[in-house]
């Protein structure tokens, strides 16, 4: 049982206290799934309710990928338009609702990133500025588990065990779809350093996630 293994994993390697209430998560998922089903039937009020419940979380993700309010707002707009049009496909995805919504936000955000590639120089500067704090400081980049699915909760536990700079590099590689070379360039780190951090970070993640499998 996944739930028992979660408990055992926690005991072997004590992370922060387990606050995640699985039953609450199930109820949330049920509510969100019911909303998506109503949206599939062209219920505009359901779209508004879904927006009220999730837009903060989804906007936070778009902002992390794009860093600019106006781009993140465009990505959020594209996201909800896509939800409106593709809600009938949700059920077949077999995903927890927030995982499905998160994937849409990330793809629409990466679309925006590509669209603004001409302004990439500017973007790089901003990322460098924003990143130098995160990578040099000791404060962990805050992670947020509100609305998170059970699997996201597991990833959160495992990411928490990484060093801050490793967690940051691993996260950005995925969220902004960056290669080793692009990461090294954007973070102004030697390529070898980036590769090492990612390899070690992934190795640790693999052994940690294996306990949740």
């Amino acid at each position, binding site marked *: 049982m996944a739930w028992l293994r979660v408990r055992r994993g926690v005991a072997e390697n004590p992370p922060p206290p387990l606050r995640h209430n699985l039953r609450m998560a199930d109820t949330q998922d049920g509510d969100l799934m019911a909303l998506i089903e109503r949206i599939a039937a062209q219920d505009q009020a359901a*779209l508004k309710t879904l927006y009220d419940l999730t837009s903060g979380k989804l906007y936070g993700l778009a902002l992390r990928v794009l860093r600019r309010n106006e781009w993140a707002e465009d990505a959020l707009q594209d996201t909800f338009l896509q939800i409106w049009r593709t809600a009938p496909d949700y059920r077949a995805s077999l995903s927890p609702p927030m*995982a499905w919504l998160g994937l849409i936000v990330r793809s629409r955000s990466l679309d925006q990133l590509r669209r603004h590639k001409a302004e990439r120089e500017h973007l790089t500067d901003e990322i460098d500025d924003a990143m130098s704090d995160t990578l040099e400081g000791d404060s962990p980049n805050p992670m947020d588990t509100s609305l*998170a699915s059970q699997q996201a909760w597991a990833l959160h536990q495992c990411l928490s065990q990484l060093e801050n700079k490793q967690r940051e590099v691993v996260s950005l590689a995925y969220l902004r779809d960056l290669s080793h070379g692009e990461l090294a360039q954007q973070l102004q780190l030697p390529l070898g350093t980036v590769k090492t951090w990612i390899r070690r970070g992934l190795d640790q993640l693999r052994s940690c996630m294996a306990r949740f499998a």
Partner: protein
Amino acid sequence: MKLQRHPELLDRLAAAHALGTLRGGARRRFETLAREEPVVRAAALIWQGRVASMNELQTPKAPAGAVWTRIDNLVRADQDSQAMAMARSAPPTQEPANGWWRSLVLWRGASAAGALATVLAVVTAVGLRDQLGAEIGALQAQLATVPTVEYVAVLNDDSASPSMLVTFDPNNRKLTLQRVGNFQESADKSLQLWALPPTGGPRSLGVLSQERLLKLAAVEGDVREVPTLAISLEPKGGVPSETGPTGPVLFKGALIQKML
């Protein structure tokens, strides 16, 4: 090499693939294997799900209020255009209400006759150019030189005299109305323009102001496949589209799509 016999390596490749840091030839080889070998595919999918849950861990922030307004507008536009497409393909369901105005037979007959009448009216207008003044001539010259005008109607009064020239420009989504007769409604009345589609009741296209030349916003869906336009005399400010015209019809005529 059989990747499925090396679970440690498979796990590492699948994790790097999901993170996006496996690139180039290594990525292509891994994806080829994943398509061929279910074990490799399963490992890739498991890691895709795990890594993707990073999307759910980002710090929330409230977006600006204007974002929802934009989404709401787009969704409504989306639904409107869907409804319009469905209405266009659906068979007629609505029986016209009683009364001569809503009589489908009458309007079908009128529109058939209207097509001929309009041709005659245009011919007449050309012949009577002097009497009708320079306005029509100028407008016709304008019609000939402006390629975006795709729909034209000449609305006649009951003695078959042209009273209103209507053109529709789909590019600018504007109906242009020009009064060419001498009719002037009293201050407590308004003229209202109606589309008379082949099915369903009359649909309001807008209320006319007193100017001789005026523009109304419209989209092509409002006039496409509408055989006839009509203008009725209504209380000041017009009546809602759903109620249909309440006053007498002063002018009517066929709407023709320009082929030029």
